[in-house]
């Protein structure tokens, strides 16, 4: 009895990594680029057997099979990988392929990522699902901490009125209640778009002139640079952002809801507050 009690006590004191023998390695399929980022950040990248075409695999890591594109999951390929768990996001997923995976008795876990709170919860949830609850909690805490530091750093500055542009023709902007709208708070910016029932309203040049943003964040084309290419607002000096050249072009995929978000926001903040 004495020895058994000692063993139990001992196992409780031991850090998680020493219990690796208890951690049964998973075969993970990720259906979203941000989920893949999270899985790597949790240290479970070696257990990934399937990812999407758009996922970034760290240099040097072994390449998992491609088992999906943005919205679709390639059911046959997923089955062929024999996954123990399939992780996706509730947004922009094809219901049909998810259902057929579930029908086959596969363990499919879907997580929401529409707000920061949801994202942090989902990171903790993924940690638990992968039997790495501590890692999940730590990662979520680290992101929260970095974002808090960003907020503290930039709240001292006068807020910059900015517009986040998703599409050029028509002009599609991030409205209130969107993910980027929430992110803008952390970097000393406020959304120049007024609150509307449509989350991503389509506007015209006229509305952009009326809003008169101090900065334009152009996420529309995937390419980064300083905006030499034709844009609807080009040459319209009545818009403050155009007049002052405060137009930032970044790749939208940098802002995935995951571990890389604080760095992307930090870069954006640096570009917006420059000058």
């Amino acid at each position: 009895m004495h020895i058994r009690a000692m063993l139990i006590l001992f196992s409780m004191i031991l850090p998680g990594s020493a219990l690796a023998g208890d951690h049964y390695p998973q075969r993970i399929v990720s259906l979203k680029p941000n989920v893949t980022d999270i899985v790597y950040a949790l240290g479970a990248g070696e257990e990934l057997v399937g990812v999407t075409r758009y996922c970034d695999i760290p240099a040097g890591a072994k390449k998992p099979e491609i088992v999906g594109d943005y919205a679709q999951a390639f059911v046959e390929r997923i089955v062929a990988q024999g996954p123990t768990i399939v992780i996706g996001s509730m947004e922009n997923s094809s219901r049909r392929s998810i259902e057929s995976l579930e029908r086959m008795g596969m363990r499919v876990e879907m997580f929401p990522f529409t707000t920061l709170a949801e994202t942090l919860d989902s990171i903790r949830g993924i940690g638990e699902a992968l039997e790495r609850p501590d890692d999940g909690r730590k990662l979520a805490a680290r992101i929260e901490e970095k974002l808090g530091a960003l907020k503290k750093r930039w709240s001292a500055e006068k807020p910059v009125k900015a517009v986040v542009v998703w599409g050029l023709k028509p002009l599609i902007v991030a409205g209130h209640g969107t993910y980027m709208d929430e992110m803008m708070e952390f970097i000393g910016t406020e959304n120049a778009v007024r609150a509307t029932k449509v989350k991503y309203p389509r506007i015209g040049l006229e509305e952009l002139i009326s809003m008169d943003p101090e900065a334009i964040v152009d996420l529309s084309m995937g390419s980064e640079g300083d905006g030499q290419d034709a844009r609807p607002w080009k040459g319209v000096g009545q818009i403050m952002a155009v007049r002052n050249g405060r137009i930032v072009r970044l790749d939208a995929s940098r802002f995935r809801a995951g571990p890389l978000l604080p760095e992307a926001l930090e870069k954006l903040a640096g570009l917006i507050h420059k000058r």
Partner: protein
Amino acid sequence: MHLTLRKWIAVNSVLLALLAAAMVAAMAMGSGRVTLSDAMGADSKARAILFLARLPRAILAALVGMALASAGGAFQALLRNPLADPFILGVSGGAALGSVAAVGLHLPFAWISAAAFLGAAVAMLVIFAIAGVRRGLDSTTLLLTGVIFNAFCFALILFINAVVTMEEAYQIIFLLIGNLEVTDMGTVGVVAIFVIAGFGTLCLYSGRMNLLSAGDEDAMAMGVDIKRLRAIVFVAASVMVGAAVAASGLIGFVGLFIPHIMRLLTGSDNRLLIPASGLAGAAFLVAADAAARTLLMNTGYATQLPVGVITALVGAPLFMVLLRKQMRKA
């Protein structure tokens, strides 16, 4: 109904006045109230809204509406088919494929319109080569070639859409939905040149186009070179449609129902029908785009509608009413 010069002038003057009224209304409509005196005064923002945002867009709408409606009327005469619209002969598919390919090849945004126009021109040449050379531009062959070419182009578009990144796929969808936002003033100028040339050519040949409806033998008996006439109408209308689609994407319904409405209102003489369709199409699209811009903008939704929503929602019922009236008369 006999066409007199007086009627020609009267109808076209009324339509020209309508177009002018639509332009003024489009300039006056927007999310904020901007008056001409504000714009002329020290208010540079008001000036930008009127002359950089609203005016170029209204001009583009007029040009595109003119191109689509007059080309639609011309194709209906050329093919002797009431279902013909400006997009039926494959040029739209070529233009759409050109713009989508530009996205797929990661070309700069400014090149997309040029690529679309190139696609339209290539489409026109291909269709002309397939349907034209041996068959003497027989209308059934032309129609079938156009429809099949469009289907082929849209299959390639879906193919490209499947292999690009998610952001690009998203962009492609919006490219295909018609939109009259002006992203570059140069484009408006280029479109104007093509539309004025195409529209002018169609008006010039509108008298001879009447003979197409009489049937090939009759026309030939009257000494008209049918092959040459078909080629001219086809090229003039296609170039114009190519420029319009390159600048604004696919805007449905205008090119189909405006010529029909004009036919119901003014008779089927192409000498009047073609210019009247062009002017009516211009006025209608300017008004429809002003409505699309503003209808939801000052509500809680605060967004613009695709102009195609307005053209079909207004056009379809209006067309039904006129058609019923016509049927009762007959």
